[in-house]
């Protein structure tokens, strides 16, 4: 606890801002039903009502309360992005560490497989898979996680490669330790910092990817509130000089900036860099 207070005190303003933003989003996502005045899919007024009065941010193209949709959107978009990133890290991290620890043909097969996946444009490939498998939320999470795990695999393998050749790993090998023990006790703890930083960055990418898919109509399906599709649904308002459709986009941007600030600080910290460098 003391260390934590000290750490927070030494953090730069950018990281503090980032952490405040993330905290705010998490609170909003968790307490969505308490914060929002209406139900998620409830039609409460006429289409495209202006800001103010009963509707803080007006209503959308079907007459649902925009503010309520924003709050629930945080819950859905962030929740799904988080689950997807976790899954991507489980898959990519495990195979990456294993490839580095084993080397040889296992590494070759896994790496070439990943090369193939990475050679396909992810958005096109995701659209293809979603069109085949349908667009339920579990499928969405699975497809994006697998596509994204290739990047995680690359990083985990690269980091673990440098560790797998160190003497202490050799000591464990010579002791006769099993593969899982070596990965879990020797390699994983020492490759965590770059992976944690990458988690933050990948979370942003996944988040943007889901938003993009939703905008194209293949992501989170209506009537579930989601920032990507909210931009699309209300896009016509832009022509009338109304900035309402930019609000969900702004929410996405703000979270991305916040996460990146925190990740930057964390990387800086773990890399042992000083401020003057």
């Amino acid at each position, binding site marked *: 606890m003391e260390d934590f207070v000290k750490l927070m005190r030494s953090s730069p303003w950018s990281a503090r801002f980032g952490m405040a933003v993330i905290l705010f989003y998490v609170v909003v996502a968790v307490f969505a039903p308490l914060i929002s005045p209406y139900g998620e899919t409830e039609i409460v007024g006429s289409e495209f009502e202006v800001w103010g009065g009963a509707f803080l941010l007006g209503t959308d193209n079907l007459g649902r309360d925009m503010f309520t949709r924003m709050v629930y959107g945080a819950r859905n978009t962030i929740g799904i992005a988080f689950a997807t990133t976790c899954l991507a890290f489980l898959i990519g991290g495990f195979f990456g560490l294993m490839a580095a620890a084993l080397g040889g043909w296992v590494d070759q097969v896994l790496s070439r497989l990943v090369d193939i996946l990475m050679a396909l444009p992810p958005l096109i490939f995701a659209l293809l898979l979603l069109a085949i498998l349908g667009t339920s939320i579990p499928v969405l999470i699975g497809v994006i996680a697998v596509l994204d795990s290739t990047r995680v695999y690359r990083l985990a393998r690269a980091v673990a490669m440098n560790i797998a050749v160190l003497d202490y790993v050799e000591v464990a090998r010579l002791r006769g330790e099993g593969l899982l023990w070596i990965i879990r006790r020797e390699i994983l703890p020492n490759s965590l910092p770059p992976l944690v930083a990458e988690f933050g960055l990948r979370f942003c990418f996944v988040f943007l990817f889901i938003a993009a898919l939703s905008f194209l109509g293949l992501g989170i399906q209506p009537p579930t509130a989601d920032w990507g599709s909210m931009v699309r649904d209300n896009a016509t308002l832009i022509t009338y000089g109304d900035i309402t459709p930019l609000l969900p986009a702004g929410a996405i941007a703000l979270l991305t900036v916040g996460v990146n600030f925190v990740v930057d600080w964390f990387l800086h910290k773990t890399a042992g860099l*000083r401020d003057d460098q």
Partner: protein
Amino acid sequence: MTSSKKGDVLLVMRDLRIEGQADEKWHEIVRGIDLTLRRGEVLGLIGESGAGKSTIGIAGMGFTRPGCRFSSGTVTFDGIELTGAPEETKRRLRGSRIAYVAQSAAASFNPAHKLIKQFAEAPVQHGVLNAGQAAKDAVDIYRRLQMPEPDTIGFRYPHQVSGGQLQRAMVAMAMACKPDLIVFDEPTTALDVTTQIEVLAAIKDIVHQFNTAAIYITHDLAVVAQLADRIMVLRHGKLIEEGETRAMLAHPKEAYTGQLLAVRSYRRDEFPPSQDDPPLLEVRGISAGYGPLIKVLDDVSVKIGHKRTVAVVGESGSGKSTLARVITGLLPPYQGEILFKGQALPPSYKNRTKDQLRQVQMIYQMPDVALNPKQRVRDEIGRPLEFYLGMDAAARERRVKELLEMIELPAEFAERLPGELSGGQKQRICIARALAAEPELIICDEVTSALDQLVAEEILKLLQRLQDDLKVSYLFITHDLATVKAISDEIVVMLQGRVVQQGGKNAVLTPPHHEYTELLLSSVPEMDPDWLDDLLAKRAS
């Protein structure tokens, strides 16, 4: 060599203090150093790691490492005060009037450019020479440094010359602008003893030819004794003793200097050969290498008796570490077999039983990377106990305490992470980890070469005591003949993957030697300022 031809004062440091930042706090790492250097004089700075000798050396150029700062005092180079000087002033001096030679030449050269182009960079940049003159100068200096093929060697890339040649090329680069002062920061530490001599002789020669002042930084008193007119002994950022080289070597005033002088004098007598049959470990006709083409070991046979120490000596590239990898099973050999108590060991460690693995343990050169930085000492030492001996938590705890006692560390160290230990302490933990498995053979791969000399000697004594108590055998791989003299019973001399001489310590160390053994033995610097000159004269004749 004598101090008679000293010229005017060139560099003066007055009460120099430098601070370094750690954990957001400033710590003083150089604590009030006074230093005077005259033209043409060579000053040796000596001390163990953390003595601040490198920091003082680069402070002579008006520079501090990132994270360090001058806190007080002055550095005056030929009348110019450097600590507060603008960057532009210092930039003009560096490279043209003050030059620096770093420890690792390989890391200091740009691999993408030819040597001569890198030589010409500083003088052309400073406008001292044009490119043509610089090339001509380079050849001249390469010749003076006795580099092979001085006319053409400059047109090679850094990876196309040997380590010793590269280090000399770096000295040549420092000489490019005929500077008044050169700072040598451990220029021979990373080299083999036989190569070290070439570089030392070259440095000594060229510094005298150009009457350049030099600060020579090293942890090895015997090396600095060959070059320096004057020596400053440093410890924890403070001056311990300063004096003329000869006078200091003959009559050290401080106890610490005496300790440094006495280093390498530790000796143990050879144990009589045990007549056990079969021997503990026998390596028979091993040929091994990496890939089908690169043969590193060629028909190597070695025997290690019970409770004996066999030292494998050789320069880098002799295959001595590869031998260790073959014995541990990391590198299955092309040919030959490894017998442990008469039983053949499977060539790959993957096919060895737990017990076979337990009996041969290894201690590494770099304790920094031999310990997992995220594991506490307790887990590090406790794991072999659990893994091989199946001890439960309480038994492990007791045994870890015992092992810590054996390696002369307090029991509280069980709580620590490797980052909270010094180099010598880390190496002790590595020893305890090896001992925890209760092995019969421990392979020590250059275990002292990354440590300060005084610390290294403590480690050697500890290993010796443990052998007396536990009856364990050592296979000691080293390039340092002083270590060999100190603790071995038998010596195996290796050259380019072959064993050139092998036998009891006394037999190998008494003349007549094998030609190569003779070369190795004579190349170890001695605490005698005339040693290098005498040796070069002898070799020339």
